[in-house]
């Protein structure tokens, strides 16, 4: 594709993209620096690799082989150099390239978040709309009361209660892990739990637990947005026009309710990834959160830094792309940035 730069506007656009790209690289460097500077506080990774009997001299030798005794700047420059060659280092506890370890743990987390998002959408939409349309109905009051309760219970407590109720007492659902998974691409990377009945059964409790944090929030958000929309002039006009209630609610009001909700939802999905750490710990779900915690506990600093950098790069990349698109869609974004 050939890009012709012939108008002033296009010149601005190119400058904008370059600026954004430089900013992104700077952010990445800073994040990797932060990761690197905390690593000495995580603990000594060699301790976890050896038995208690191994002498300090031998531990020092292993640390030397791993390059842990080099000065900070040497280690950091070596790390950046390797990353530029696509090498994020080798995980000390998994004994495999960090990138491979992270990519293999990612699908479990993505499936968990996907399942939770699905539950949120399927439940919050009807409940939110209902409680907006019939705010005085007994069921609406029940929903609102219940959602207050839901917001105030921490996710690990919800998860443990679910396990004791549905697994231990009733015996309906499995208590931990991912169950039977299918290797989608036959290369060991994406093991999916969505394709087997056992895998789906294992997904239910963790997904509901994870959804429980956001669900009440969305019900309330949809309710208040919808109630606001219902008060607007054009809805009143629609009523006056004599349209059927169903059409007013579902087509005119609901559509406009969705706009802010979708925006918030997009932002919150990232936060949901953060919450997976708790859910994955309780359910021993072998995802990225679980892996991250394991890396901290066992002082696997290589994996920790690789994780920070990779996750940060995903966020930076997405944000940069979004910003660039905004630039295309809404020129004022660019202009405000040119001053």
């Amino acid at each position, binding site marked *: 594709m050939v890009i012709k730069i012939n108008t002033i506007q296009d010149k601005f656009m190119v400058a904008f993209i370059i600026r954004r790209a430089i900013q992104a690289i700077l952010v990445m460097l800073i994040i990797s620096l932060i990761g690197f500077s905390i690593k000495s506080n995580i603990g000594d990774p060699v301790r976890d690799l050896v*038995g208690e009997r191994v002498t300090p001299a031998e531990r020092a030798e292993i640390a030397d082989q791993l390059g842990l005794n080099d000065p900070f700047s040497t280690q950091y420059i070596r790390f950046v150099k390797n990353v530029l060659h696509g090498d994020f280092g080798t995980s000390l506890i998994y004994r495999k390239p960090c990138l491979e370890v992270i990519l293999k743990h990612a699908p479990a987390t993505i499936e968990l978040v996907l399942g939770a998002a699905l539950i949120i959408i399927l439940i919050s939409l009807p409940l939110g709309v209902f409680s907006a349309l019939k705010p005085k109905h007994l069921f609406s009051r029940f929903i609102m009361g219940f959602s207050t309760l839901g917001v105030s219970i921490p996710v690990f407590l919800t998860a443990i209660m679910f396990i004791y109720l549905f697994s231990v007492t009733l015996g309906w659902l*499995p208590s931990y892990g991912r169950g039977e998974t299918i290797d989608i691409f036959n290369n060991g990377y994406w093991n999916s739990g969505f394709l087997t009945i056992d895998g789906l059964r294992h997904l239910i409790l963790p997904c509901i637990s994870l959804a429980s944090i956001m669900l009440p929030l969305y019900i309330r958000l949809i309710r208040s947005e919808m109630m606001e929309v219902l008060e607007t002039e054009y809805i009143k006009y629609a009523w006056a026009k004599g349209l059927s209630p169903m059409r007013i609610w579902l087509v005119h009001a609901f559509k406009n309710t969705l706009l802010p909700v979708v925006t918030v939802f997009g932002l919150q999905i990232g936060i949901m990834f953060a919450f997976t750490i708790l859910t994955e710990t309780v359910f021993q779900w072998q995802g990225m959160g679980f892996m991250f915690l394991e890396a901290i506990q066992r002082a696997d600093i290589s994996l920790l830094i690789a994780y920070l950098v990779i996750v940060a790069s995903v966020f930076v990349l997405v944000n940069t792309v979004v910003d660039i698109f905004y630039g295309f869609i809404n020129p004022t974004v660019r202009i405000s940035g040119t001053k």
Partner: protein
Amino acid sequence: MKKLMLLGLSLFMVLFFTCTASSKTLKVGLDADPVSLDPQVQLSGGMLQLSHWVFDPLVRWNKDHKIVPRLASKWERLDELTMRFYLHKGVKFHSGNTFTAKDVKWSFERLQKSVDFKGLFEPFESVTIVDDYTVDIKTKKAYPLLLNMATYIFPMDSEFYTGTDDTGQPKDACVKFTHTFANGNESGTGAFVVKKFEQGIVLEMTRFKDYWDTKSPGNVDKFILTPIKENATRVAALLSGDVDFISPVPPTDFKRIQSDSKLNLVTLNGGRIITFQMNQDRVEAFKDARVRNAICYAVNNTGIVKKIMKGTASVAAQQSPVGYAGYKESLIPRYDLKKAKALMKEAGYAKGFEITMMAPNDRYVNDAKIAEATAQMLAKIGIKVNLKTMPKAQYWDEFDKQAADMMMIGWHSDTEDSGNFSEFLTMCRNADTGYGQYNSGAYCNKTIDELVIGAQSETDLTKRAEMLKEVEQILYDEAAFLPFHWQNHSYAAKKNFKIKPIVNALNFPYFGDLVIE
């Protein structure tokens, strides 16, 4: 169409019944899984457990703490330095190769090079092949623990591990932090063959059909190990029937499991002593044996076992647990607050003093709680404690730096012998010899050093036991450390899994011999 359905149905029936009738599956949930398939890469509980499942040692400990034959069917002492082992004949490795004396020699020599094991095998000289099924193991000087150490020799298939792998690396490489052939492949003589190993996720094994030990009553066909680190989740997995066996069982859930008619709980004294060391270099008062004694008298360790450990530990007043050569029955827990106060007064510290204390919070069972209780108990004799607890990943650095006046340390003897405790915990700290490596208290007593080193080469076992008992007595009288208890191992399983005969003080459940009813 009808035929097809009939065919499908019958096929399903056949599959269904063959599955339920013959296959006995064992699902195990442990707090940690092995980090590798290479039995020599790391000396840790998890790795030794794996070694007993997938490999077999020359000899092993039984439930009564006696050494019994495994791949070595019998042994005899030739002279002060040499022990002759007669090997089992007709033993096959998982690869199909036959097990002979050369595999013992090969594995032994690899052990001597392994970072984790070379310390343990330091007293050893060499292995000599007498014939295909006889080997002589020689030590540098008289070594009474030769047989104890033979429990660590798990012969590996020397042919299988010879050559180079796909990446051009030698197959026998023993490296901790990169991928090696032995980290991901195995050929042992053990009851189970590894089918799938995803570290941290699952370890799947099936019974080895040519297993040499035909007398073993074990009938587990398939053995699936999943690590479940969260205590609550592990217990829930057993209660809900998702796994058949768990270990360790958190003390708070003992009652619940005992009261369940479908489950069985087994606990055993595990021999890991939990102690606090009092640093004499940092605190002048700790140089006075009266002050150290006062601390021992002030801490109610019996109460800690009852209240904090819920009875899942054995109260201790010495390093050696029952059954060890140095165990002295007369050393009993001292708790006497009056006496403690009197001792403080006598030493001139009636008003007490202030100290710092550190303990890990994820290394030993209830470690942080024990430290908190100790701090409160010491307050009663005027010692104000500033306590800091932290994860083990950070704790060991602090321990090496001797960063606090009192530091917690737990120890399990690798040799299953009393001397090992002193060698690491209470002998004078010496960087050259490595003795006292975990002695953060700077306690140093020449008599102890002489006795322990003497015991290392004393082959008269009665005399040796006397020496080790004397060590315990001196340590007790001088209050060299503050003892708490020996941690218990705890196992829980469904009733039809007969776990009692297969568990032992070493925490190596011999699943090869497990009977499922």
